């Protein structure tokens, strides 16, 4: 049982289960119990409205006066501006997308291996282990990335990377590099979201019915063909869900990135240069911020909210569409 997995895979439960007597129907008298539940719901609704509303409200000044700067501007000058969020946006996109690619490519293979290539006795242990890893707080990954991975990469890997042809285009100018970098952040993010992705993917792949696998083998398919042409397509829905969940986690990650990306708000793409992301910039700058800067940081928060909500929306839409396709099935 995995909470994360279930919330992706769940809504088949809804069907005709669960509802015996509908609340709010006029034929049943409302009891204090109904009112209690409704009160809690109203409270929750209020909290969520407040959640969105207060951040938007506090960011008002920035949207009113300098919306363009926030989205397209380059530098971030405390304490009075101009506050340009482009570097953060680029950083968020670069790090999360690279992290996602790492997590999906490696994670999919890992999930497949766990389900098909690991002996039955070990499977449960490995699955539990992966779920535990998914629960490790991100600050721990950040700490490890900063104190262990970063120095090693700086001394061992970076020089090699910088020696590639086209190094300057991809990695940037070595004189500007000092360890913390967007690439490092992307890798640590990738390692961080890997267990989550693997845990969900594994669960989804494991429930592909055995007789589909046997049927395809009986037709003369090779193991890889079974995986590629039968198992993966059948588990498409859940895999999409896993991908979006991983992406959502990557884009929202704050402290790990704050520790290892370098915290430099400069608009550039080079991977081995230091950079920042929206979430980590908010975290690092907020402490000393006043007035206008707070408003600008809140505005960055709004951007983050938009990003997160859109991901959620797209994920729901995609999963819903896949469900409809397969429901005809």
């Amino acid at each position: 049982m995995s909470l994360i997995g279930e919330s992706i895979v769940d809504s088949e439960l809804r069907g005709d289960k669960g509802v015996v007597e509908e609340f709010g129907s006029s034929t049943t008298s409302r009891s204090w119990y109904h009112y209690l539940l409704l009160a809690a719901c109203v409270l929750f609704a209020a909290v969520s409205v407040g959640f969105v509303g207060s951040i938007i409200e506090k960011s008002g000044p920035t949207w009113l006066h300098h919306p363009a700067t926030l989205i397209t501007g380059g530098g971030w000058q405390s304490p009075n501006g101009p506050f340009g969020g482009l570097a953060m946006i680029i950083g968020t996109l670069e790090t999360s997308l690279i992290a996602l690619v790492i997590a999906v490519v490696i994670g999919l293979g890992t999930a497949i291996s766990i389900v098909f290539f690991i002996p039955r006795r070990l499977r449960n242990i490995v699955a539990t282990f992966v779920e535990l890893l998914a629960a490790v707080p991100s600050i721990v990954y950040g700490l490890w990335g900063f104190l262990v991975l970063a120095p090693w990469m700086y001394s061992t890997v970076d020089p090699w990377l910088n020696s590639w042809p086209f190094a300057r285009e991809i990695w940037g100018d070595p004189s500007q590099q000092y360890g913390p970098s967007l690439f490092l952040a992307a890798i640590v993010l990738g390692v961080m979201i890997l267990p989550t992705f693997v845990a969900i993917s594994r669960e989804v792949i494991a429930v592909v019915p055995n007789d589909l696998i046997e049927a395809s083998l009986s037709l003369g398919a090779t193991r890889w063909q079974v995986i590629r042409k039968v198992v993966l397509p059948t588990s498409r829905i859940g895999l999409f869900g896993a991908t979006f969940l991983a992406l959502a986690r990557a884009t929202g990650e704050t402290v790990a990135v704050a520790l290892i990306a370098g915290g430099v708000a400069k608009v550039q793409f080079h991977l081995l240069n230091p950079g920042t992301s929206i979430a980590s910039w908010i975290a690092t700058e907020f402490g000393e911020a006043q007035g206008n800067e707070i408003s600008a940081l809140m505005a960055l928060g709004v951007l983050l909210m938009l990003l997160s909500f859109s991901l959620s929306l797209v994920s729901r839409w995609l999963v819903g569409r896949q469900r409809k396709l397969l429901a005809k099935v």
Partner: protein
Amino acid sequence: MNDLTQLEEPTEIDQSMREEIRRVSHATRARRLLISRVMTTLCALTLAVTAVPLVLLLFQLIKRGAPELTWTFFTKVPETPSLIAPNATGGLSNAILGSIALNIYAAILAIPVGVLVGVYLAESLSKFASALRIIAQTMAGAPSILMGLFAFSFVLQDLHVGFSAIAGSFALAVLMLPVIIIATEIAVLNVPNTLREAGLALGAKPHKVSMRVVIPSALTGIVTGCILAISRAIGETAPVLLVIGGGYLNTWKPLSPVSALPLSIYENAKSEWPSQRAQVWGAALLLVIFVFILSLTARIWASRKQKVSN
């Protein structure tokens, strides 16, 4: 409709078709088997690639963190090292106490509301319920820094409460709510309908059925969800970073500033003192141990109830 009349004798075309099928399948077999070999090996490799950094991480965590978990660590407040005493870091009792306080308050705030909303979502077909469900699912995926911004904006600015434990707990509660709601809804939905019907058949009113029959059955799932929510909240830095204040004192009162384990790690990771950097490995290890215990507890609890109900 008698489809069976369709069956004909094998014709010439038939024969050549069969031969070509045999021929092609034979010709491509070696290549297909090779591809299968290669790809499955690659998959196995990715397993190794996944395992390596994670195992290394755990190894470093234990290696660097274990020595830090001393009696001092648990009982003394932090000190600042100086040149004459570079290893005088004290302990992290302030952070431990703060984390405990923060999470208890957050749980008190989030669990009652979350469970109630979850029950409602499971048992109601109204549009309101659908809307709340979407809200909960969306918020579950929201970056935790936003909860910190919300707490700052609402508790600190609007309510004029200063840096405090309650502000941090507020942020954590907002974080935990969607998780608890979703878990509760799933748990209640998983209660078989036959149980509900039995309760109603005995003449009990629907709300009594819900209270006395359904929720107790769903309790395992609900508890599991709460444990997982707490386990997540303990390790979160971003929501509390902006609003709890930190500090070196052993405080826990709701209105006073507190520290927290994740916060200490974040603050001291970049310290110039190696001894302080070393100390936070202990905090990290402690966090991970705690989270592991909670997760395993949740898992064992859930599976035991499964066995009983089967």
